[in-house]
């Protein structure tokens, strides 16, 4: 206890005096969105640990293959001495695909947990005690799969591809092959361009998936993953039985696959290594993209609304 003059319970307000409260400095500028994103990165190590782990696994595999086949650049096709004729760019494609799929999986589980875990551990009461709106919070959480994860996937994939290129070059040099041949076989920088483009396209294309998962996480008390999967599945089954059609199933299926409109026809179904087959105009003008973005925004708006009303679990 301090001296009685210091605390006067029930004393008349003394805002006119230079008290502790009034002596405080003017409100400081804040960046709620920036700090909300940062706190997501603090809390969710999987955002960068999972891609790095995936890259590590690929590199271990590549190194073992390199050790196994000295002097020859492995193309991931070798098994029991029989080697399939895979193009030299195959390892790079595998890196890209694995990291993009990893980013999607991390994104789905991140979104399911983002508005669910805070209710489970009751920390929502702490977050809500600060002047950060529900809209800012949900926007920061949507920012992770839309922007952060594709960037992480691109950077990790590019670094991994760089390491593979370096190891291939070293291996080629050791066996006396020509380095130039390797560089013509592997169009490294155009592959990087394709990778960046694909990462961005997939992140935007998946907007309704991210929004749906955020909404389900905000709404569900338990087993958010089941709640996310069961209703779409139920609609597919009901449609099949009632109408004998599978429109909804195709809708979901086409959404979960990479957007065809983003690549010009010859590339579809094959590995893309040529910047010329990218079709950003076709992608940006495809109705599927905009319908998906609208659905994603709708789900996210619903998640904002649900978070306002939801109590801790």
């Amino acid at each position, binding site marked *: 206890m301090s001296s009685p003059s210091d605390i006067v319970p029930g004393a008349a307000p003394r805002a006119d005096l230079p008290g502790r409260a009034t002596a405080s400095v003017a409100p*400081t500028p804040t960046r709620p969105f920036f700090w909300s994103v940062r706190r997501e990165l603090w809390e969710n190590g999987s955002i960068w640990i999972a891609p790095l782990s995936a890259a590590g696994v690929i590199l271990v595999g590549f190194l073992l293959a390199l050790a196994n086949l000295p002097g020859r650049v492995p193309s991931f096709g070798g098994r029991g001495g029989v080697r399939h004729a895979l193009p030299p760019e195959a390892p790079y494609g595998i890196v890209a695909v694995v990291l993009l799929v990893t980013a999607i999986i991390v994104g789905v589980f991140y979104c399911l947990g983002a508005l669910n875990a805070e209710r489970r551990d009751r920390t929502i009461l702490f977050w809500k*005690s600060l002047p950060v709106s529900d809209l800012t919070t949900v926007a920061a959480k949507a920012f992770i799969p839309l922007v952060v994860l594709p960037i992480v996937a691109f950077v990790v994939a590019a670094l991994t591809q760089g390491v593979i290129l370096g190891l291939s070059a070293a291996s080629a040099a050791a066996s006396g092959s020509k380095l130039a041949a390797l560089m013509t076989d592997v169009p490294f920088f155009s592959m990087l361009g394709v990778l960046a483009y694909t990462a961005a396209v997939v992140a935007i294309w998946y907007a309704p998936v991210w929004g749906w998962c955020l909404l389900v996480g905000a709404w569900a008390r338990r087993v958010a993953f089941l709640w996310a999967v069961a209703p779409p599945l139920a609609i597919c089954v009901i449609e099949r039985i009632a109408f004998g059609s599978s429109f909804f199933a195709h809708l979901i299926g086409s959404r979960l696959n990479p957007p065809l409109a983003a690549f010009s026809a010859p590339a579809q179904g094959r590995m893309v290594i040529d910047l010329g087959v990218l079709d950003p105009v076709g992608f940006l003008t495809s109705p599927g993209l905009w319908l998906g973005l609208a659905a994603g925004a709708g789900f996210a708006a619903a998640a904002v609304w649900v978070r306002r009303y939801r109590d801790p679990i």
Partner: protein
Amino acid sequence: MACIEARGLRKTYGSAVALDGVDLKVEAGRILGLIGPNGAGKSTALKAILGLTPYQGELTVLGRHPWRERDQLMREVSFIADVAVLPRWMRVSQALDYVAGVHPRFDRAKAEAFLARTTIRRTSKVRELSKGMVVQLHLAIVMAIDARLLVLDEPTLGLDLLYRKQFYDNLLDDYFDGSRTIIVTTHQVEEVQHVLTDLMFIDRGRIVLSCSMEDFEARYLELTVRPDQLAAARALKPINERQAIGRCILLFDHAEREQLAALGEVRTPGIADLFVAVIGGRTQDLRGAA
């Protein structure tokens, strides 16, 4: 302008009535104890005040509608809802960084100064701190926020006596300055008796008692009656009677101190004893009627 003003505040969960037409007014610069049994509606009332739940009736907090204007309101209102809500993964330094980054009225230096008086290290994660230290950390954050209203819902639950005492001492010494308003709910009523300026009992969604602590002291008297004066004391219509170590203790509302002093030892009752008399009496009435 009153800090909080409610008229006919009502909240139902399905058929259960949590708040049944509450009228209340809390002036700025008060420290109000909101006391009630479990399920009385304390938490619901606080949630309505903090804009965490929609409600019926009229309610203004700092002149704002807490549900519709929650985002603006939270710049001027702080709360500690629970001792265990700080994120366990967070480092102490991260907690300070984050709050400094989102709260325009957070004074980081003040929080640092408060933490310097504890054994909490900046690099520790919340999960590594003891329960008492987590509360100290939360208090350090909240006290460094220049808020006009601070709401504390069972802030010392599960803490040992030393931490509890320190909590309220810190609150009074370092935070309360006569212009802020504090609302606290707790079951450890004896410990807040000297802290409060106002007292409110809530039971089954209704305010059953509301008075300032000066009124409380002027109005309620507790008499440890001499055995030979028991009949005379009972004739003065005590509101409650209890036995303690073979003595009979009577609680009076609006009695003359001199008159009681002739019958035994008079003192101001504890909030807990009044609580038992008021709320316990209501419960017994209900049971008797049933």
